[in-house]
Structure formats: structure tokens, C-alpha cells
């Protein structure tokens, strides 16, 4: 009886939490439909095409999952940081450096087979974590807000990586006159993340799901999860209760950066087989990850589901573009509107928090 009521409550809570994301998706699809109508196409057919192109065939589905892999990792990075109260947006930079580190390690390190993959993943994790720690350090020492530091560091990472693959570490076999993005050397196939089965998605996706599980476990079953959540809910309460804010800041930043860095590695090792200039920046993986995390309310499992949907939107969108000559930008519009609608919530939460803090302060001053 009791457990039945509890499960009822859980269901209710999930529905509650899902209301806004569902509404956000619905509204953005409707607005997307309006855009499609304006360019004189049938939105129902277009969306049908999009769904088919994302999930309709195995090849399509695998493409979607491949694209979802770095998005999931970027989403987890956001979940970890934001749930703890640090609104960091440095996933992109960490992912870029992670991809670069993995591509270089897998190309240059003279290690046999699986060991080389491990070393590449490790390099990506370490680089991502360090880069993330840097913004944590800027915050702790100089009070640089996360939004500013992480966004700026993203540019630095992207152009630094661009420099590396354009000049000192450019693929030695590349044709100088080729009209394509600069890239690093091609990783030997034994050092890439292979498909699970031929024609399927690469192992990076499985590792991403493992990361989802680990994050879920961290959040719900460990003292780290408890401490970071308390820090996110009320930093002063956490301090009062003996949780060291400094320790939590760095732990959270390390974990978050590690996830993003690995996301970059999965893309470099599983998908591209090298670092290609702008491969993370132009695809917006990290931002899609952020949208996914927002949609899921910082729940890791939900983030994975939302990531796959967003990846489907992009992959299905290109099919839609090809078959119905609807510009891919429609998909960007849809994702943009979702972001906007979810950030409305974020702003509202931030505003109400500020209000509550202020009101509470009035009481404290007494």
C-alpha cells in the first residue's frame, strides 16, 4: 500500500518535472512547423521525414547514436557542474582539448593496441579536467564568474587546437592544396574506438552510457552526490555542515571536465579518427549537451535520452533537407527555441533564488 503510494508519487514527480521540457519541445516543433509552412512545405511530411531519417533505419539510428555520444558526455558535464551550483559552460573547450589530446596520443604514442586507446582516453580525461579546473581556480582566486571564464576559455581552446592542427601537428600526409579543414594525422585503426558490431555505432556510445550510469550512481548513491547537491541547493548550509566548498569546487570541476574531455575523445577516436579543425566547435555538441541537461533537469538518465532526441533532430534534419529541400536551419531553429524556452525556466529560477536570498537577508539583518 505504502510502496504503491510512493510509486505514485514518483510518477507524479517525473510528470511534474517533464511538463516544461515537453511543452518546450512541443512549442518549438510547432514554431518549426510554421517556418516549414512559410517556405511552402508540408510540416507533417517534413517531420515524418525527419523522424524516419533519425530512427527509421539501422544506418540512420546508428548515425543518430554516434552523434549523440559527445552530446551525452557534454550533457553529463553540465549536469555535474550545474547541480552543484556552478553554472559553468566550458564543456566545449574541454571537449576540444580532449579530442585533440586523444587524437595526438593515439597517433604519436608508441603503445600497442588497446593500451594506446586507454592512454588516449586518459590523456583526454586529464586535459579536460585540468582545463575545467582552470576556470574553477579563476573563480576561487579572482571571483571570475563561470559564464565569462568558461566562454572565453572555449575560444582559446578552439583556436589553440586550430593552431596545432594547422601548423606544428598538421597531418604530414595531407595534401597542402586540398580544400578541406586542417587535421592531425590519421590514427591507426587499432587505436580507434571500433564499432560494437560491423555497421553499428562505435564503442564510445557504450562508454557514454556507462558514464551516464556512473554519474547517476554518483548523484544518488554517494556522499559526493549528497555534498554537491547540498552545495548547489544552499552553499552556506553546506559550509555550515562542514562540507569544504573548495574541495567540492575542484572535485566537481574535475569530474565535469573529465566527462567533456572524454566526449571529445570518443568523437576523435570513434567517429573522425583524428582531430579535424572545428570538429567540435562547428557541430555545437557541447551546446546540445547543455540543452539536453536542461531538458532533463540535470538528471543523467534523462540527459542521455534528451541527447539522443537532439541528435536525432540534427541527423533526421539532414535527411529532411535532402529529401524535401528544407534547409537544415529549421532544425537549428527548433533547437534554438528549445534552449530559449528552457532557459526561461533557468532565469526564473535564478530570479526567484535572488529574490528569496534578498528576502531572507532582510530577516537576517534583524
Amino acid at each position, binding site marked *: 500500500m505504502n510502496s504503491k503510494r510512493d510509486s505514485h508519487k514518483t510518477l507524479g514527480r517525473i510528470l511534474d518535472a517533464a511538463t516544461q521540457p515537453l511543452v518546450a519541445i512541443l512549442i518549438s516543433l510547432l514554431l518549426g512547423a510554421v517556418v516549414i509552412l512559410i517556405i511552402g512545405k508540408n510540416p507533417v511530411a517534413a517531420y515524418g521525414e525527419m523522424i524516419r531519417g533519425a530512427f527509421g533505419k539501422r544506418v540512420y539510428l546508428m548515425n543518430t547514436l554516434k552523434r549523440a555520444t559527445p552530446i551525452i558526455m557534454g550533457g553529463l558535464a553540465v549536469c555535474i557542474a550545474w547541480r552543484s551550483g556552478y553554472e559553468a559552460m566550458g564543456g566545449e573547450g574541454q571537449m576540444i582539448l580532449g579530442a585533440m589530446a586523444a587524437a595526438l596520443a593515439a597517433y604519436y604514442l608508441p603503445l600497442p593496441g588497446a593500451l594506446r586507446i586507454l592512454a588516449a582516453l586518459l590523456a583526454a580525461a586529464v586535459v579536460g579536467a585540468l582545463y575545467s579546473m582552470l576556470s574553477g581556480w579563476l573563480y576561487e582566486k579572482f571571483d571570475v564568474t563561470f559564464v565569462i571564464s568558461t566562454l572565453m576559455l572555449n575560444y582559446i581552446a578552439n583556436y589553440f587546437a586550430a593552431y596545432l592542427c594547422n601548423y606544428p601537428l598538421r597531418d604530414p600526409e595531407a595534401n597542402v592544396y586540398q580544400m578541406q579543414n586542417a587535421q592531425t594525422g590519421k590514427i591507426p585503426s587499432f587505436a580507434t574506438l571500433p564499432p560494437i558490431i560491423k555497421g553499428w555505432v562505435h564503442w564510445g556510445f557504450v562508454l557514454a552510457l556507462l558514464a551516464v550510469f556512473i554519474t547517476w550512481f554518483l548523484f544518488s*548513491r554517494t556522499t559526493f552526490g549528497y555534498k554537491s547537491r547540498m552545495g548547489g541547493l544552499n552553499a552556506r548550509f553546506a559550509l555550515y*555542515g562542514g562540507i*569544504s566548498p573548495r574541495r567540492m569546487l575542484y572535485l566537481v570541476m574535475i569530474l565535469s571536465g573529465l566527462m567533456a574531455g572524454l566526449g571529445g575523445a570518443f568523437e576523435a577516436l570513434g567517429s573522425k579518427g583524428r582531430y579535424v579543425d572545428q570538429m567540435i566547435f562547428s557541430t555545437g555538441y557541447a551546446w546540445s549537451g547543455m540543452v539536453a541537461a536542461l531538458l532533463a533537469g540535470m538528471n543523467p538518465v534523462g540527459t542521455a535520452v534528451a541527447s539522443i532526441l537532439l541528435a536525432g533532430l540534427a541527423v533526421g534534419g539532414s535527411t529532411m533537407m535532402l529529401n524535401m529541400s528544407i534547409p537544415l536551419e529549421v532544425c537549428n531553429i527548433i533547437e534554438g527555441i528549445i534552449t530559449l524556452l528552457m532557459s526561461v525556466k533557468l532565469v526564473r529560477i535564478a530570479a526567484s533564488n535572488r529574490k528569496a536570498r534578498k528576502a531572507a537577508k532582510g530577516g537576517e539583518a534583524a
Partner: protein
Amino acid sequence: MIFEMKHITKTYGKVVANDDVSLHLNRGEILAIVGENGAGKSTIMKILYGLEKPDSGEIVVGGKPCRFRNPSDAMAAGIGMVQQHFMLFEPMTVAENIVFKNEVRRGPFIDRAKTLETVEALSQRYGLKIDPGARIADCPVGLRQRVEILKILYQNAEIIIFDEPSAVLTPLEVEALLETLRSLAAAGKSIVLITHKLQEVMAVADRIYVMRQGRVVAERLASETDMNELAVLMVGHPLASYDIGRPLTGETLLETRDLCLTEGGRDVLRRISLHVDAGEIVGIAGVSGNGQSDLVSCITGLRSPTSGTVTVCGRDVTGRPVREIRDAGLAHIPEDRYIWGSAPEGTLEENTLMGKQDEEPFSSRGIVSQKEIRHYAERLIGDFAVKAASSQQKMRELSGGNAQKLIVARELSLGTPVIICCEPTRGVDIGAMESIHRRLLRRRGEGAGILLVSSELTEIMNLSDRIYVIFEGQLVGEFPRGSMDDRRLGLLMVGGTLADEQ
């Protein structure tokens, strides 16, 4: 009769907050509604003020049935409310805050001169002295409250509701507030006073409703009742008086030596040396804002003192992290339950776990045991009679008194030798206050050393074995129990000396 509420019923889920409540208010009357936390007095006023809608029942204002969808509707009907937490813009002036939303205009512009004039006139008419040009940020709490009242008067309210107005005030400010209430009533305004401070009720109210468990259980004229009767009606049983007995003092558990704190060139704490021994409650009396919070922050590790030492159970913990100080044997009931003492959006389980998260059986090697955490939370909720639907509900869903009980439960259950206890009963009803006091006395009997910081002088005098008086960051006196009366302590608290008495 200026308004009447008939047969109001309001439920939240399964909880009946108001059960067939009927009450009325006469013109020029001060009506008090007293009751414990959760008795439903705030709910009934929220309904009257348009913040909540009743499930059933009727509100009649000035002979007409009314339905308020929001506070603006209520305000339009002449009902204003002074909330516990003030809604003022700190960087703006008193006058600007008062006329907010109804500015005095000249064309499209705000007429500043006229604004000041209007506000000045308003303040004189009701005898509420303020400086219209002062910035809110520079005003003490008592003045801010006065600004709130003027804001409501400016909007021509005929009925003014005060929700626990004295909770945030110093004793002197309370006197001024009571005077204000009387003069407002004399000017023909009708006042509803929600409180659980019976002294204030007896001092100003004409008529009193007592609420218990969502119902009105008694209506009395102030001239026909006394504090004892009201207290019994409120809690449903007679109150215990405190005879705390002789302290069994033992070794010194908490000691500070020459503790100083300088902030922005200002001496916040000046050479504070105090000690708390096993088995005693030591009170710190003072008008709030004289360094009590800073002293507690320095002892508990929330801040580092500039100089001096803090010793807990023989360990020098000066400037050490909170974790280390707590491990040395200290618990801390913080002065503000929502800012420091809890995560309002967290569950009761999460809130009771704080401080024990790294201990067996709640966690081992970093993995938490949800079962143990739930059992523990449920045990504390039961032991301390916290009114809660489930250990998984959110902290903010508890009433203030129950939230406080849970925090006290958490800290006392740590079983530490030293307990720092700040404003343990602020905004808490008599029943909860009594139970919190009893728990503190029990811990004292078990040999704990308790440092009690409270702006309620009666609380300090009732519970303490020894009292320090703090004024402007300095201890200006130390007295054993019973050697001082409240008048003389009050004098020291505001910077006087005992020689000033004559």
C-alpha cells in the same frame, strides 16, 4: 463591523489548515489572532489578503461579499499586510519606497518635491516618524517596518494585518511598534495582529481569537482574560515553568581568549574572552547586531578571527575548517534556519543528514545508505514531534516552527559536548519553544556546555546559568543566574553602565 469571514475552510492535500473558521473585525479595533505555528492563523490571513483561495466560505468587507484573486484586489478593498519579511528596495529612499507603484507625478515625470511633502504629511498624520530622504539600506529594522506601514497607509488601507511584526525587532523597537498600533487604531484604522507573543497581545489588543489545529477555539475580550488563560488555550495544556536547578559545572568545554575580528577597518569583535563549562548554559545577551553573529561565526569556523584563540574540548581550533571544529565536539544551531541551517529545496532526509554524511552507518567508503538515512530522519521527526507528512518532503514545506525543531533535532542528536545555540526559538510557537527549551536543559543535565545567543531577553534569563552582556563587539559584563533583572541587563545592552541607573 468592517469585515467578516464566514465558515472558511482551506485544505492543503490532506492537511486541514482552516476548518470552518469564522471571525470578524470591528472598526478601530486591534484584533489579535494567537495560536501555535500550524494552527492556521497565517493561512486565514493569507486568504483575507488574497494570497490563497479558500475551499469554501465567504469574505464580507464593508457589507459586500468579496472574492480576492490576488493581493492587489485586497489592497483595492482597503486591506494591507505588513509581512514578516519586508519588501523594500534597499538602494532607494524611504519616500520612494512608500510611493512605489503610486508615484506622485507631474506630467510623465516623478515630482520629487511633492513626493517628499506627501510622505512627510503622511508620517505626521499618523505620528510615524521617519526621514523621507534616508536610504532604506541605512535604516534599522524597526524603521523599515515603519516604512512598510506607511506604504500601506499611503494606499489608503483601512485594515492592516501584521504578521508576527515583533519577530525581527529589538525590545525598544517593539515598544515603539506597540505605540504605533495604538495610534493607528485611535486614528480609526482596524488592526489584525498575528502573533504568539502574549505579552504584546495583552499590551495592545482589544479582542483575541485563539486558534488551534485550524479552528478558532476561543474568542476573548482582552479585559476578560490573561496571559495564562491564553497560553493554556493555545497549547491545550498548562505550561511548565522553568526551575532549571543547580548546574553541575565541570571542566571548561569551550573557551575563547582575546578574540578579535576586524572587518573593513571596523572592530567587529574586541578581545572577547569567555568560557562555557560542562553542565551549564551560558547566555549572551545583547541587542542584535552587536557582534553576536560574528562571534558565533568565529567560534564555529564560518569565519576566521583576526586574532585570539578558540578552544573546543581542549583543542585549539582557531580558524580551522568547520569540519574539524565540529569533529572536536561542537554542534551549532544557527540563527537563521533557511540561510545557514537548511537547504529549503532539499528533502527532510537530506537536511537531517548534514554533518553526519561521512559517518557510519549513513555512509561507508563514500557510498550512502539510503535506508539508514531514512530511518534516522524518521526517528528525529518522531522524537522531536516534527509535523511532517513524509521524510521525503521538502524542507520548505514545513512550517517555520517545525523546520526549526528539525534543525534543533539534528544538532542536538549529534551528542556533542559543546552546543552553540543561536535564536533557538525565533518565530516559533509556545509549544515548540517549550519543547526546544526542555531539550536544551536535558542536554545541559547530561553535561553539555551550551552557549545560548538570543535576542529574547526572557529566554536568556530563563535558561542561563551565567550571562555575558555584549555591546558593540565587547563583553561588558558577566553575571551569575538571578543576580540581574531585565531592566538592568537592558541598560547594559544599550551601552549604559550600572552607575547610570540613578
